[in-house]
């Protein structure tokens, strides 16, 4: 049995890295952070480069204009997105919305291929594994999803909601939504509240179908954020190790002190323990394994915990400079803090993994 990525999968990852290292530099991120415009920087250009690359439609079938690949290919691409702290919601679009639209039986024919053709970004909201109920409630026929990423760039939204008549998953165009930007810790994520009125023509799934799809959305969101976190921590750790080799104290680099070395080594160990769980979850989705929900929960639990610890360590190693606006460390710290708690934090995901694991073993 083979436990490593194929040459092909590694080549896709490398191809993504080449594009993102050029198109999403720390100075691009700084432009975005320092701009009043949430679409600042080279956002549109970057999304179309990802679309030209094929990253946005990696999981769409070839008939729909995609590449017909699986999550085992996507996971490396998403890790690369994390390594540059990509602001665009590539994970939610390519790893959640696209496969769900391909999966849902009520998706109108040609819808996915038209979205792929346009290079349109679909963001996802209304489902949060961290909520006690799986989806947001409708009130007076209107639903209201909080903290939906990339609201300004999204062409449409995949949204779940529940009413007294049952649950529904809809694909709603941005012109049919009321979008209110929400202040967030990581402003690059461009969060917003989305209010919409579920209409029959927008429904992708309802009833039992919708419940299954909502479960897929929850687990897929966990997986893509876990993959992103692995990439963020990888880059943050490299940057911090470089800093520790450069920054002098008592006449020597601080990285020469064992206490500093050990802290950074512990982060590397935690990252290398989280990664296989993330890769396993990706594989489980790619073969539609029954354990995929459990695996995604475990992956997110490990990744969230690892990212929180990594952020604390990297900030400490940087010392005072790490707290400043001028330091680029902030892009990675904020992403860690935001994604470690979004889509279920570590304790919540552990509980989910436990209950799903018990079900599997019965």
């Amino acid at each position, binding site marked *: 049995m083979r436990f490593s990525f194929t040459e*092909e999968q590694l080549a896709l990852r490398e*191809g993504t890295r080449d594009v993102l290292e050029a198109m999403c530099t720390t100075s691009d991120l700084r432009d975005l952070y320092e701009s009043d415009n949430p679409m600042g920087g080279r956002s549109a250009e970057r999304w179309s480069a990802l679309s030209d690359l094929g990253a946005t439609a990696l999981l769409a079938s070839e008939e729909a204009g995609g590449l017909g690949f699986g999550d085992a290919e996507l996971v490396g691409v998403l890790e690369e997105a994390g390594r540059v702290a990509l602001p665009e919601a590539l994970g939610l679009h390519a790893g959640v919305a696209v496969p769900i639209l391909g999966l849902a039986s009520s998706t109108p024919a040609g819808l996915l291929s038209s979205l792929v053709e346009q290079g349109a970004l679909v963001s996802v909201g209304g489902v949060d594994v961290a909520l006690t109920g799986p989806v947001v409630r409708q009130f007076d026929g209107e639903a209201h999803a909080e903290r939906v990423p990339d609201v300004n760039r999204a062409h449409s939204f995949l949204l779940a909601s529940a009413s007294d008549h049952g649950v529904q998953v809809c694909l709603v165009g941005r012109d049919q939504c009321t979008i209110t930007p929400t202040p967030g810790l990581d402003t690059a994520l461009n969060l917003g509240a989305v209010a919409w009125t579920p209409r029959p023509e927008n429904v992708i799934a309802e009833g039992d179908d919708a419940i299954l799809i909502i479960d897929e959305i929850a687990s897929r969101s966990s997986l893509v954020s876990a993959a992103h976190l692995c990439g963020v921590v990888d880059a943050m750790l490299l940057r911090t190790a470089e800093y520790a080799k450069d920054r002098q104290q008592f006449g020597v680099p601080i990285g020469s002190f064992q206490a500093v070395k050990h802290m950074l080594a512990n982060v590397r160990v935690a990252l290398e323990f989280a990664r296989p769980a993330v890769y396993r979850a990706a594989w489980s989705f790619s073969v539609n394994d029954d354990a995929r929900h459990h695996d995604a929960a475990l992956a997110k639990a490990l990744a969230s915990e690892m990212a929180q610890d990594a952020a604390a360590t990297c900030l400490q190693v940087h010392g005072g400079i790490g707290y400043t606006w001028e330091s680029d460390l902030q892009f990675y710290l904020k992403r860690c803090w935001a994604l470690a708690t979004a889509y279920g934090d570590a304790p919540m995901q552990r509980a989910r993994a436990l209950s799903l694991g018990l079900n599997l073993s019965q």
Partner: protein
Amino acid sequence: MNVVVCVKQIPDPAAPQSLEPGTHTLDRSGKLILDDSDAYGVEMALQLAEQAGGGDVTLVSMAPNGETSGLRTALAMGAASAVLVSDDALKGADALTTAKVLAAAIKKSNPDLILTATESSDGYTGTVPVQIAELLGLPSITFAKSVVIEGGNVKVQRQTESGYDDVVAPLPLLVTVTAGVVEPRYPSFKGIMAAKSKPVETVTASDLGIATGAAGQEITSVVDAEARAAGEIVVDDGDGAQRIVAFLEELKLV
């Protein structure tokens, strides 16, 4: 229109590099990547072939150990096929030997146009392209910042120190392109996947009828670069600005 692009696969410039102790040549035993400066030639070739309404872009490369990683990158960009000359007997080959090998490999494709970079990013001799042209008995135009095909002619804007010259020459010929000529595309996922199945013909020097012997050139010694000397401090006696302008003029920067 058939275009051949000469591409070099070089050790990753971002990785630490070393010289081989005996020959003082670059250690090329590790993984090699496509020389960045060659991506411009590949892109130019793809665009010219597209504009001409068809034709193949063929890559020609010489590298040790049957190395194809760099070629795969260029194939992923869209080139149709590649010829790789890989032969232990060519280890440490000098510029002229390299030119003879590449010229022989290029001849097999009988191209309308040959594109190369102005020089490689690891050897920097900058002599191989014109040697190839000479060996093939073709005209050559160097330092192209723009290449346009019109009828049977190539119109080139040739970069000079003060601007550019317009140069026209008939096909077939060899053109060396600068980094400004076009913006290379990124290989798409489809391109990366397709590159795996594109043909790469690996040949040896003897397949090409090239006699391999002792290289005409050898590196006798290598010394460390001199430490940078201290700069000149200009004390501004009211003429500071003029002296800076004079200095920049001397460097032909203004």
